[in-house]
């Protein structure tokens, strides 16, 4: 087979899109013809290089420009972009970095100062110790509550006692009092002698 005929099929051979018979014929020719073999190797190398060409990423600003110039509305931002735009970008500033640095310095100094007591603090902050502290606190609150209840009962009993005593005294005092009952006066006539002893009346405000 002639070289010109083979050259027409080289792309197909490299892409393996030729019929089986033609693939065999081209392969046989390539074994005998160094010129065509070099050409085939060069095409293969071109294809490999082309495949390795990187693909460019589109800048989001370009998409924004396109959308504003066409539909008039900017691009819908994803959650990630929103977080970056509204949260991360304002935070990631030199001022924030300086502040964060100062805070870190302060924390480091505080830890350095507390280092000797760190064992005790760690023991206090252990879960078992924290539970014990909580239990103690609850017991204390409960006992305070009981004490308050006792005091309340004591005061209540005293109040009842004094109240009853006062009422009892008042009742006694009222019983001792004489309360006269007013009778109708007769308009004229001789004064009749009193038939009996003067009536006495008393009103008991409280039951005996």
């Amino acid at each position, binding site marked *: 087979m002639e070289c010109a005929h083979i050259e027409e099929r080289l792309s197909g051979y490299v892409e393996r899109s030729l019929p089986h018979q033609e693939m065999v014929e081209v392969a046989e020719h390539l074994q005998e013809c160094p010129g065509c073999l070099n050409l085939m190797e060069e095409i293969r190398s071109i294809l490999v290089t*082309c495949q390795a060409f990187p693909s460019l990423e589109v800048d989001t600003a370009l998409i924004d420009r396109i959308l504003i110039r066409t539909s008039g509305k900017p691009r819908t931002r994803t959650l990630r972009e929103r977080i970056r735009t509204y949260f991360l970008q304002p935070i990631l500033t030199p001022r924030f970095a300086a502040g964060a640095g100062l805070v870190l310095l302060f924390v480091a100094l505080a830890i350095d100062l507390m280092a000797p007591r760190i064992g005790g603090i760690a023991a206090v902050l252990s879960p078992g110790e924290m539970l014990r502290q909580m239990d103690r606190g609850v017991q204390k609150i409960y006992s305070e509550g009981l004490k308050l209840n006792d005091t309340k009962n004591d005061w209540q009993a005293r109040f009842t006692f004094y109240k009853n005593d006062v009422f009892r005294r008042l009742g006694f005092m009222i019983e001792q009092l004489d309360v006269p009952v007013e009778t109708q006066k007769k308009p004229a006539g001789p004064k009749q002698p009193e038939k009996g002893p003067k009536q006495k009346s008393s009103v008991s405000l409280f039951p005996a």
Partner: protein
Amino acid sequence: MLPGDEKVVERCLQGDDAAWEMVVNQYAKRIYNLSYRYTCRRDDAEDLTQEIFIRVYQNLKSFRTESGSFQSWIMRVGRNLIIDHFRRTRRFQQVAGTEEMETMNLKDDTLPSPHRSVEQSEASRFLSDGLQALPPELKEAIILRDLEGMAYMEIAELLAIPEGTVKSRINRARLELARLLSKRRLQLGMQA
């Protein structure tokens, strides 16, 4: 046509901004890369991408499903504008793979190791120089097939030529480029 493209176009025509945003997001990268392959300048590629989408937006009504896929239609609009731009400025640079490669936004997963990156950059530059020397129609064939990875049928649809012609043009372009690069390698004393 990608599933749902037709409906998305209909929604765009009804004034649905979200649908249009979807179209832009879906095709921006492809259009931008295509523009960059032709112009090899990021600023030009950005301007062209913008112009292409404005043209697409203005001409959405003229899209007909019978005449091909929406993707092909967008690519055709893009290619026509790129060719216009070329005629206007007469300054198609070498194809991507120049100094700009070192500063462009690469996808994280495609970032090679530094040593490999240098090798690839060298190979890309060598290839770009070769492509620059090809006639425009052959260069276009390589860009669409080997750099953009388009299928023969898509290229045929885009260029409005038979698929057989596309295949032979691509083969011719590869042969030309291979001879050119081989010759240059010999001159430089390099190995393939």
